[in-house]
């Protein structure tokens, strides 16, 4: 390290530690070589494998962005099963089904095992030397690309991978790291930022006595489902909180609500304003917001709101009085409220209720300010992809690197990403398995699975303090010809910036140095090696920081005239895409456990379906299993009808994530892809794709097929007393013994 010529600032940036942390981090001596050995020997049988005994190693789940700490059970050098890591507050020792299936991503029979290079129309297996040769020729030291000419497209990404990636782009003078997420949280974040001054406040679910959720599926697909489920369990213990869910299509969270309301899609903001109007009748809240805002709420009397939203007029003052009675409460908005042209205003209107009810600091808090903001995730957005798409179609993009997202599958029809890829001369994918996007690339590099690789992660949602999650290999790599993305980037960076990176023989050395650099932040008195060892052992580096305060920016809340939603004659139905907690945007459709895990609401597996309300179905003479064509102005898809009572009668819903055509044996040919019928509607404020605002028409095709589902012909208990329900005022939870609150 003494031969290091770059200055300290640069060095810290290389390691992703600057800003707040830079002042804390001293430049110590690091021993890289010891680590280089460790990366080889860590999972070698001689030392760590006791035949017949399962040993647990800590790591981090990368199946979604929550960053749960996990423990892998390793036996005879094989990773067998993942459990939650109790040392991490995010997972609290628990794990979701999606997380469990991480092992199947690792052992997937369709994994890419060797580099592939385009030859004419197809991809051919080549050696790593050849592949790296091609890569270096294009993006190595001689490359003259700069700025917009090179783009790195990824899904949500955090930690040192993100830093390396940015550094790599920077070596081209580019900041063109495009982060795309088909299920982007950007509208919600924008509204949060506008009202609370922070993108993602911490929801203290267990502290609330009443939760009013506008389509927020925090138990299924929220920012941290495992953590929030644990909080939810405590919320349900004495004194038991009440959950009210308002959404057009019942989500998993809605299914757990004490009261569920079906609302006309897009009118959530109106209902929120109606509730605000109702609350303000009460003297306690009369002065909680400025006069002019209160005046603007005038038109939102319960009859008008009921008319627009389709919710019973009496329910509105009833909900308002519950909000008033059960304090502190928590009002949250979710994707089905935010995914509209006026989604941003919907969300701010919903947040207004928190301000009126003064939930700030009680059930809503800011995330702790943490010392390594560079490691925080970059959230994906639709707009980023649209811009990239435009640049590509204009021929401005010369080299495109893709990792961790699949726009060819998830991008809507009006973003012809797949076509425009043809206009990019050099496309590289880093992936563990070929998907629709990587099949169109010129060079596909097989990377290590998350269970074989090192890494760090910082979750976007930090529920308590801050956790720097450590990911470490749980077993030796399965395929000799796969490489970690970190190692590939380091190799490239060594070409681009030999001086800055020559000190790091490999990614492991880099990562260890970087993590050890952060030691002062954690205020531990250990040697660097011990610190690193502890970090690996615990799988998490925790900082117990207090929650930050959040603002109340009432001015951000816009109240416009009530939007009456017209029933389009041509497209009479609202179309609500639903997200299955384990398939998400479809990136996990290749995992057999998840395909076979029935959807909690419908019990359908291995398929797509169209949810339609039984009364609507009766009117249209649709039976279960009838194959319907769902047609929007943009396109159409076909799927079987499923009669579903948990949906607003003017709405139909389809799950996203199925309909793959090039994603391996478990995903291909299953169901249909509703991303392709989304209409080009955008949120006025953020320009994000308004995913829940598509209108469709339903056509019967006359065909019928058997529904692939777990439930039988009845969805009722038939008086069998299987699930018994008790009224909340009868239960005496305080007298019970339970594991939940321990």
């Amino acid at each position: 390290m003494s031969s290091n010529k770059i200055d300290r600032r640069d060095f810290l940036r290389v390691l992703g530690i600057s800003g707040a942390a830079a002042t804390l981090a001293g430049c110590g001596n690091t021993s890289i070589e010891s680590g280089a050995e460790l990366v080889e020997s860590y999972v070698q049988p001689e030392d760590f494998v006791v035949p017949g005994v399962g040993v647990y190693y800590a790591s981090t789940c990368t199946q979604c962005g929550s960053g749960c700490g996990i423990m892998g059970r390793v036996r005879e050098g094989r990773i067998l099963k993942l459990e939650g890591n109790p040392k991490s507050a995010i997972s609290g020792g628990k794990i979701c089904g999606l997380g469990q299936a991480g092992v199947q991503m690792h052992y997937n029979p369709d994994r890419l095992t060797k580099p592939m290079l385009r030859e004419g129309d197809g991809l051919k297996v080549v050696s790593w030397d050849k592949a790296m040769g091609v890569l270096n020729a294009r993006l190595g030291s001689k490359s003259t690309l700069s700025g917009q000419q090179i783009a790195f497209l990824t899904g949500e990404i955090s930690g040192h991978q993100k830093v390396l990636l940015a550094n790599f782009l920077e070596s081209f003078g580019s900041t063109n790291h495009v982060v795309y997420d088909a299920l982007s949280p950007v509208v919600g974040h924008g509204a949060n930022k506008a009202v609370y001054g922070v993108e993602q406040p911490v929801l203290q679910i267990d502290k609330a006595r009443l939760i009013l959720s506008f389509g927020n599926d925090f138990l299924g697909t929220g920012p941290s489902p495992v953590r929030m489920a644990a909080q939810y369990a405590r919320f349900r213990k004495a004194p038991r909180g009440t959950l009210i869910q308002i959404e057009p299509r019942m989500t998993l969270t809605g299914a757990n609500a004490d009261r569920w309301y079906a609302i006309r899609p897009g009118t959530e903001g109106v209902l929120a304003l109606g509730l605000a109007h109702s609350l303000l009748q009460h003297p306690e809240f009369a002065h909680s917001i400025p006069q002019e805002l209160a005046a603007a709420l005038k038109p939102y009397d319960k009859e008008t709101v009921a008319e627009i939203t389709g919710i019973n007029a009496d329910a509105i003052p009833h909900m308002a009085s519950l909000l008033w009675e059960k304090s502190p409460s928590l009002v949250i908005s979710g994707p089905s409220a935010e995914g509209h042209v006026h989604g941003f205003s919907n969300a701010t209107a919903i947040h207004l209720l928190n301000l009126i009810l003064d939930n700030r600091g009680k059930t809503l808090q800011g995330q702790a300010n943490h010392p390594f903001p560079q490691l925080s995730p970059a959230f994906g957005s639709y707009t980023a992809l649209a811009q990239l798409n435009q640049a590509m179609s204009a021929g401005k993009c010369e080299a495109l690197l893709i990792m961790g997202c699949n726009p060819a599958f998830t991008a809507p029809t009006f973003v012809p990403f797949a076509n425009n890829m043809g206009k990019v001369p050099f496309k590289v994918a880093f992936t563990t398995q070929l998907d629709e996007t990587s099949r169109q690339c010129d060079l596909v590099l097989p990377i290590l699975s998350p269970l074989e690789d090192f890494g760090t992660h910082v979750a976007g949602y930090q529920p308590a303090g801050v956790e720097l999650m450590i990911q470490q290999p749980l077993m030796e790599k399965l395929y000799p010809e796969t490489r970690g993305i970190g190692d590939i980037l380091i190799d490239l960076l060594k070409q681009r910036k030999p001086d800055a990176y020559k000190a790091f023989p490999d990614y492991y050395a880099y990562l260890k140095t970087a993590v050890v650099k952060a030691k002062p932040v954690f205020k531990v008195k250990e040697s660097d090696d011990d610190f690193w060892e502890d970090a690996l052992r615990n799988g998490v580096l925790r900082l117990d920081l207090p929650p930050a305060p959040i603002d109340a920016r009432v001015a951000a809340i816009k109240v416009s005239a009530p939007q009456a939603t017209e029933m389009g004659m041509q497209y009479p139905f609202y179309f609500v895409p639903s997200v299955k907690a384990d398939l998400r945007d479809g990136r996990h459709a290749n995992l057999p456990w998840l395909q076979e895990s029935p959807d909690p609401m419908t019990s359908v597996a291995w398929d797509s379906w169209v949810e339609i309300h039984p009364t609507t179905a009766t009117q249209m003479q649709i039976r279960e299993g009838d194959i319907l064509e769902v047609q929007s102005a943009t396109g159409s898809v076909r799927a079987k009808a499923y009669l579903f009572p948990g949906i607003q009668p003017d709405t139909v819903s389809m799950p996203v994530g199925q309909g793959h055509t090039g994603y391996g044996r478990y995903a291909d040919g299953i169901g249909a892809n509703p991303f392709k019928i989304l209409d080009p509607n955008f949120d006025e404020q953020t320009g994000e794709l308004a995913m829940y605002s598509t209108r469709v028409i339903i056509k019967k095709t006359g065909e019928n097929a058997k529904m692939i589902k777990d439930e039988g012909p009845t969805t009722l208990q038939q008086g069998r007393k299987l699930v018994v329900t008790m009224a909340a005022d009868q239960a005496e939870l305080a007298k019970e013994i339970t594991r939940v609150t321990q």
Partner: protein
Amino acid sequence: MIQSTDEKDIEIERRFVPKAKDINDEIAWAQINKDVLRSMERPRLMYWVIFLASLALFGFGVYCEIYQYQNGLGVADLENPQVWGLYIATFIFWIGMSHSGTLLSAILHIMHADWRKPIYRFAEAMTTFSLMTAGLFVLVHLGRVWEFYYVVAYPNERWAWPNFNSPLVWDATAIGTYLTSSIVFLYFGMIPDLAICRDNAKGVRKKFYWLLSLGWQGTDRQWANFRVAYLTVACFLIPLAVSVHSIVATDFAVSQQPGWHITSFPPYFVAGALYSGCAAIITLFIVLRYVFRFEEYMTMPILDKTCRLTFAIAMVWTYLNLVEYASVWYGDDPVAKQTLLFRATGDYAAYWWAMNFLGSVVPFALAFKSLRNNIPVMLVVSLLLNLGMWLERFMIVTPTFAHGFYPWTWTDHWMPSWVQWGIVAGSFGWFSMLFMLFCKIFPTVSMYEVKEMVYHRFVARKARA
């Protein structure tokens, strides 16, 4: 030409033979031997048609079974909880078929009902073969046939016994015993006839019959011993036959499932068994009479008596069936009631109504003499009755799985796959193939007993005169 003589005979019979006359007492004993032995000689075309059709069906069944064996029972479209399907339903059906042979033979023998004599032999053969067929279904149905012997109680070094609490073990034991005794009974009854065969055969056949007839010479002492032994086995068989189907009924009655947990099941099953067995006897009676020209022996009065017996049993069955419905309907188990309603109105309602119609209404055809004496009508009716009885078994097994205790696992219009149908069809092929083979190897009409019968009639007529 022969046809016309037949018709004339029947004509004569109708006009002059008194009511109780089951058989023409003027047939010479040598004629009896000749007629019966003739049936064992070179087959007629009709025989070949039936035999080859059976063989083809059986072959298809074997193909289905091999397919199922190799791939697993999944090919049968069985599922959780529809775990049994046609195999168990058809198993009960065949067990049922096996009952009437014994009834006709043993009970009527003890009761000295002479008219059984020309037909009991084939009825007993039917018993044996349908038991063997039923046994096949036990094997076909097992997930791991190759371990079937675990069910048998045999002393072994691992101290692993079957579970004596399980009705299936009772089943295996009872069926095994019944099969052995039935074979013994059939064989005992055949010994004097085998001796006749021996005396009339040449070459290998002679050797074969010589071996089987155990040195029968027809001495007085042999006859005396024979009668005692035969009566003993007959007495032994009667409780056994009743117990076998009662035990099969406990397979269901012992369980807790709605539609199965019914006290009246054992007698109900026994009645159903006798019913289907009698119906099968009528069918085979007509077939044999035609194929082997047994008009002289399998006469219309005997058919008439068999039909009347069948009608009586049908009424007993109908009564027990109604008892079952009534006890469920007036009992206070809502689940069982729901399952009963499901049978009458649900996915399988058509089968249920068909079964009740075929089982309880169609037998009234047997109440009319004119219909009883109409052979084609009786052939159709007897086949319909057996279809009804098969449906009964299907309706016991399937709806309880489709609509049992647990609503989540109810099934929707579950139907067996072609493999199951193939194996069921194959079982019919196997049965009739065995039966046809039997007819060519063994005398299907008991020569010595028919002679007895003729003799008794003759003596009686003489006495009357």
